């Protein structure tokens, strides 16, 4: 660590439930999202977390950034561990002591952790599952996941003569969660903290399993400027590429509308290095058009216009 002389004011201690001193990268959307979730949930919670960036940058023994009870076990079992925590609280008559929140990244949720999550949702545990979606395996060096968007460049879906990046569409994880017949499914974005707060608070009042997926830019993996984390997140929503909605008992009850006239997807893509290859040749325009079609379909499907 460099030895900068610390100057300037230093009065009251930081009071967030995700304590400062964590080692997330500069401008990390996931750290921000976790801070906002904890802030909304309050102290009377028990959280689980899958292996991944969030776990690594918050729990380097002997330090921990968590001001609430926290447990990390493995990559794919955050939902199952949370199921056990909830079952134990019930068994011990301590249900009123804490709400249970399970956390995972997009890989830990939609890929390797999908089975455990499905089990948790199906069994009806009173747990809020939060997926911090930064759209790739960032902790291991930006490899593609099931939630990586179409044509996105990652270290395992590189751009090349025969490749425009990730060949597959982003998995409809909220749809999969909703298919379990759970009472509450929502998506959100770090660009809208008040919305995260409202959704977390609302979810925690609903008994049974809840699923919340938060779009969390990763400057390192998205090759975006750290100070633009919020801008990038906003553009994902404004273009229709990341639909933000609330679904109660299987019905969409609320959406965040896109701007009119609609923002072309180029605006979102061009400020991220992970899509830079699309702008290098005229053929890339055809790919951008495909991405525009994805946004248009979202706008229609979720009624975002």
């Amino acid at each position, binding site marked *: 660590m460099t030895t900068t002389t610390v100057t300037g004011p230093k009065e009251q201690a930081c009071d967030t439930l995700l304590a400062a001193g964590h080692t997330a990268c500069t401008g990390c959307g996931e750290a921000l999202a976790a801070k906002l979730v904890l802030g909304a949930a309050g102290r009377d919670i028990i959280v689980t977390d899958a292996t991944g960036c969030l776990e690594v940058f918050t729990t380097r023994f002997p330090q921990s950034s968590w001001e609430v009870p926290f447990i990390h076990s493995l990559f*794919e*079992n955050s939902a199952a561990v949370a199921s056990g925590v909830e079952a134990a609280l019930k068994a011990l008559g301590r249900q009123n002591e804490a709400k249970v929140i399970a956390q995972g990244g997009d890989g830990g949720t939609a890929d390797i952790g999908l089975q455990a999550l499905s089990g948790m949702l199906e069994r009806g545990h009173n747990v809020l599952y939060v997926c911090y979606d930064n759209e790739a395996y960032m902790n291991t060096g930006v490899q593609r996941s099931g939630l990586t968007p179409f044509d996105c460049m990652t270290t395992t879906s590189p751009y090349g003569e025969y490749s425009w990046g990730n060949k597959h569409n982003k998995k409809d994880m909220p749809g999969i969660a909703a298919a379990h017949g759970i009472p509450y499914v929502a998506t959100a974005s770090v660009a809208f903290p008040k919305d995260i707060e409202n959704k977390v608070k609302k979810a925690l009042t609903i008994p049974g399993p809840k699923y919340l997926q938060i779009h969390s830019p990763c400057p390192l993996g998205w090759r975006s400027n750290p100070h633009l984390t919020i801008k990038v997140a906003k553009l994902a929503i404004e273009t229709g590429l990341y639909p933000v909605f609330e679904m109660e008992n299987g019905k969409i009850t609320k959406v965040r509308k896109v701007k009119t006239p609609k923002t072309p997807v180029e605006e979102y893509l061009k400020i991220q290095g992970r899509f830079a290859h699309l702008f290098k040749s005229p053929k890339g325009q055809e790919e951008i058009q495909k991405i525009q079609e994805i946004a248009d379909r979202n706008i229609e499907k979720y009624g975002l216009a």
Partner: protein
Amino acid sequence: MGTTTFIEGSIAVAKTIGVCRPQVISAYPITPQTHIVEHLSELVAEGELKTEYVNVESEHSAASVVLGASATGARAYTATTSQGFLLMIEVLFNIAGMRLPIIMTCVNRAVSAPINIWNDQQDSLTARDSGWIQLYAEDNQEASDMHLQAFKIAENKDIMLPVMVCMDGFVLTHSFEPIELISQEDADKFLPPYKPQYYLNPKNPLSFGTMVGPDGYMETRYFLEKTMRDSQQVISDVAAEFHNQFGRFHGGLIDTYKVEDATHVFVAMGSVIGTLKDIVDEQRAKGQKIGVLKIRSYRPFPKDEIYKALNHVREIIVLEKAISLGYGGILANEIKSVFYGKPKTPKINGYIIGLGGRDITIDTIHHVIKDAVNTSFEEKFIGLNEALIK
């Protein structure tokens, strides 16, 4: 005191688990573990057992659920076998590393491929380095009693390690024997409620399962190893305490049968011990001074106890239902290591027997004895069908 009932092994074990008052049970069905978890489900359904029974979608999640429950302060139990056990292994290492005193029954079964649902001990032996205490039961009375002892060993505040009770699939789980069942009152007298020192709760918000780098990881393994060794005393003490209260003694770390004056001794684990005792009686009647040493605690491996019990014998015959492929008998080689550097080493022969449910008959053991007398320092398969390997 308890009552003696003619009962299936699985049901006896389930009833014993019941009187141990587990607060959370989670399991996934797999043959031949099923009768245990089915009966536990019935006890819950009938209101006889107050526990949260979590039906999961895999063994990985079963182990993860009991992990979360134990970290929250609950007494937790799971059971599995074979493929399910292998699927759990990642979590098993995690549970031991997190020092959670979970109890599981490992019903011993062969592993795939080829798929085979019958008994050997390859599943649990594969996880011998996981940090779980592994105890092996000889018969259903011991399997049943061992579970009550297991909770007491695991929850000892100086130990805090998970304990696996291993019992041979079908041979024990599906066989009927008269069993003295433990009453609730007696179980409560023996096993106090679980009071964890640290658990997940908002009043003392600790972080469990943190990342430890090169500056501390080795020490975590050192602590595990040290505690494993320390647990030897606790396992012996708990067996003695059990003997004192219930009048039944199945051995501590090991048990011996007619070993004191023996020149030849069988070493084995699990249900084959019963057959070996019959052979010992038969051979003794013919004048051969032979005995049996039962490994009850396989991890921790009681080297000193084994040495003390066997240092006078001429010949050791190790029988085992598992193999380290490319190496040979696992138990046989560990028994050999007991005598390394000692002034006197007996002849030690190892035999792989009974894999995938192959019957171990009196004839099989006669074959072993004959072979052991004629050869030395070899490990081999006994009971192969010569026609199939030509």
